[in-house]
């Protein structure tokens, strides 16, 4: 639970002819985390991919391009699961046809789209020219005359006169711009063009057509509608084809990717002229089965051996019970534990919801968040979302439990003489009396100082656990001497802080001066001395200043109370506004009261998910993890995968 899966380093060795067979077997076993072979030498080189690789990758590209049109939803469950032999047949017979049909359709669609773009471009230039009213054949094809047709922002007539008198200009208004055609002798063309540029001239390309504008526009319209019909039809056909063959296409995609991965295994292996070696890590518990299967499937030609090398750097496969699995998301987004480190997921899976509930603690909010979480988990099916929503649901349940302990329901009190049941049903109601006579375990508003002390105590235990984990990690990695000098000393410091705070509280309760001596202060002294000596030996005198960091870490747990108090404060304020100020003021007041109540609590619930979630995460990341968790591991990614759309024969 606290440690990653135990791994062994293995090498798989065999003759080269068996590489393909071995690749299939390894893939199916789905257990070997392969270490890529990198250093080539005289005898061993990186292998060449199997011949079929290039064929598969080509097919894969076309299947994926077809699938990209389909848009498969997350969590799609196939109606039919294809077997591998079926797919191989399909590949031999139908893939060509499938490719041709689809590719010709897709390329025709691209053609049409291109033509449609051209048509709309031509129309964009025809319309303003039509407004100008000069026949298209008159706008081009002169030997000594240059024609400028285009948009200008004002009539350039007067400025052109300053350059030359030999010209003809036509203008017309088009939208909020001016279309112009300027006819000018070739020798003046350049200077006239410069004038036009001052009027932000934008040229309109004159299409080469031999019919009138209206006729041409009609031609374009009819061509466009024809093409659009064809495009819609093609899209429809592809869609229909995809709908009918979606399962097949998904199966093909999976099958081809698998085959491709298999045929690329040699790229990760060391191969000599006649033999190959694949090195990797495999969970210890799988090894025996792995060895046997490999032997039986290759007739003893390929063998798997345990390696006892000094270079042992296995990947991390987190191993946690089902309830803690979703919390791996939170652990790994901080860092992936090293193989030799403690995996804190299990601890977090218990304490994260408890911290969350401690902060939010309201039966009503808990129920709303739980309902929201359950509803969302039917909508978002991806693995990440499911994990996150499970975390939210656990937290919501914890919120309900703490809500009962605090006796809060949407900021109202459940128990005691102020109980909402008393207010709702009156003093006389038997039902209300039951609640009026009960007391919450702790009322947050009245017993804040007591809870403050409790939060600090929680912090001390939380961090003590972190240091114990730290001692174990360092002892395992660098030996006990380091563990004592780097981690145990800080555990001593933590105990001394806890004792000092206890002494402070004792003085406070007894009403003595803050620093008047008591047994707790005295008890802290040996721990401080021990801490100081160990720290100076192990880390150096500079690190004594870190005592203050630890102190602030300890006090940091006060946020467990603070965030909660803020949330209660909001809730009580909204309730007061709604029911004490607005409700008594008549029908309109009642309406407004309901709106204020709804909006207020909606905002508070949103904050209530975000803030306790983040603060709880922070307490784990900053106060807890930093003390023992280094991270930097590699995730275990075995060669192979779980099939979804296909099955082995």
């Amino acid at each position, binding site marked *: 639970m606290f440690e990653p899966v135990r791994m062994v380093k293995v090498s798989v060795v065999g003759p080269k002819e068996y590489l393909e067979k071995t690749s299939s077997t390894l893939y199916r076993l789905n257990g070997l985390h392969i270490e890529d072979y990198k250093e080539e030498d005289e005898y061993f080189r990186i292998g060449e991919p199997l011949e079929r690789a290039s064929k598969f990758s080509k097919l894969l590209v076309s299947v994926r391009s077809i699938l990209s049109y389909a848009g498969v939803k997350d969590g799609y469950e196939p109606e039919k699961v294809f077997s591998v032999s079926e797919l191989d047949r399909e590949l031999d017979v139908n893939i060509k046809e499938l490719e041709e049909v689809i590719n010709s359709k897709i390329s025709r669609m691209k053609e049409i789209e291109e033509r449609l773009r051209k048509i709309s471009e031509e129309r964009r230039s025809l319309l303003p020219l039509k407004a100008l009213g000069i026949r298209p054949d008159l706008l081009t094809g002169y030997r000594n005359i240059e024609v400028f047709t285009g948009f200008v922002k004002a009539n350039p007539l007067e400025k052109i006169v300053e350059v030359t008198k030999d010209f003809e200009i036509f203008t017309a208004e088009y939208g909020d711009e001016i279309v112009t055609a300027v006819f000018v002798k070739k020798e003046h063309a350049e200077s006239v063009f410069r004038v036009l540029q001052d009027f932000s001239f934008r040229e309109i390309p004159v299409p080469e057509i031999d019919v009138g504008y209206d006729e041409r526009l009609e031609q374009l319209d009819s061509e466009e509608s024809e093409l659009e019909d064809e495009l819609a039809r093609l899209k429809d056909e592809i869609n229909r084809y995809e709908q009918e063959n979606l399962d097949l296409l998904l199966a093909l995609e999976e099958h081809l990717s698998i085959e491709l991965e298999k045929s690329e295994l040699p790229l990760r292996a060391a191969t000599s002229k006649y033999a190959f070696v694949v090195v990797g890590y495999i969970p210890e518990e799988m090894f025996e089965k792995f060895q046997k299967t490999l032997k039986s499937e290759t007739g003893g030609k390929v063998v798997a051996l345990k390696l006892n090398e000094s270079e042992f750097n296995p990947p991390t496969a987190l191993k946690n019970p089902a309830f803690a699995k979703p919390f791996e998301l939170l652990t790994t987004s*901080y860092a992936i534990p090293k193989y030799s480190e403690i995996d804190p997921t299990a601890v977090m899976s218990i304490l994260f919801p408890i911290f969350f509930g401690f902060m939010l603690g309201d039966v009503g909010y808990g129920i709303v968040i739980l309902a929201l979480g359950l509803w969302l988990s039917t909508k978002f099916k991806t693995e990440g979302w499911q994990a996150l929503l499970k975390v939210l649901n656990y937290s919501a349940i914890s919120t309900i439990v703490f809500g009962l302990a605090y006796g809060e329901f949407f900021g109202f009190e459940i128990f005691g003489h102020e109980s909402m049941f008393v207010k709702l049903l009156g003093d006389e109601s038997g039902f209300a009396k039951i609640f009026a006579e009960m007391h919450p375990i702790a009322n947050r508003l009245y017993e804040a100082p007591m809870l403050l002390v409790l939060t600090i105590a929680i912090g001390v235990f939380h961090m003590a656990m972190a240091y114990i984990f730290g001692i174990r990690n360092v002892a395992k990695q660098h030996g006990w001497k380091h563990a004592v000098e780097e981690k145990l000393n800080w555990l001593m410091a933590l105990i001394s802080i806890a004792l000092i705070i206890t002494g402070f509280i004792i003085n*406070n309760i007894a009403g003595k001066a803050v620093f008047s001596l008591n047994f707790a202060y005295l008890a802290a002294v040996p721990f401080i001395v021990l801490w100081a000596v160990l720290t100076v030996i192990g880390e150096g005198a500079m690190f004594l200043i870190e005592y203050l960091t630890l102190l602030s870490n300890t*006090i940091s747990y006060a946020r467990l109370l603070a965030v909660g108090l803020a949330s209660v404060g909001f809730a009580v304020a909204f309730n007061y506004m709604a029911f004490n100020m607005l409700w008594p003021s008549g029908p309109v007041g009642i309406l407004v009261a309901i709106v204020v109540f709804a909006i207020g609590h909606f905002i508070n619930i949103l904050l209530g998910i975000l803030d306790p979630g983040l603060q709880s995460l*922070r307490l784990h*990341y*900053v106060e807890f993890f930093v003390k023992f968790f280094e991270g930097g591991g590699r995730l275990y990614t075995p060669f192979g995968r779980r099939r979804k759309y296909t099955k082995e024969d």
Partner: protein
Amino acid sequence: MAVEGMVAVGAGLAVGLAGIGAGLGEQGIGAAAVGAMAEDPAFFGKGLLMTVIPETIVIFGLVVSFLLMFM
């Protein structure tokens, strides 16, 4: 002004000023952390860790206000 009133003002200032200070501190760190996360989403954990470091000061303010109000 009554002593209790002054105590309440002091408690409010302790939390409020500490909050402003922490906010000013966090703005730069937060922006940088978001930037780093855009480059590499794996930075989330460390980014969050660094962003919330100045927050401790608010907790100090809070504890001070508690001591003022309740003790």
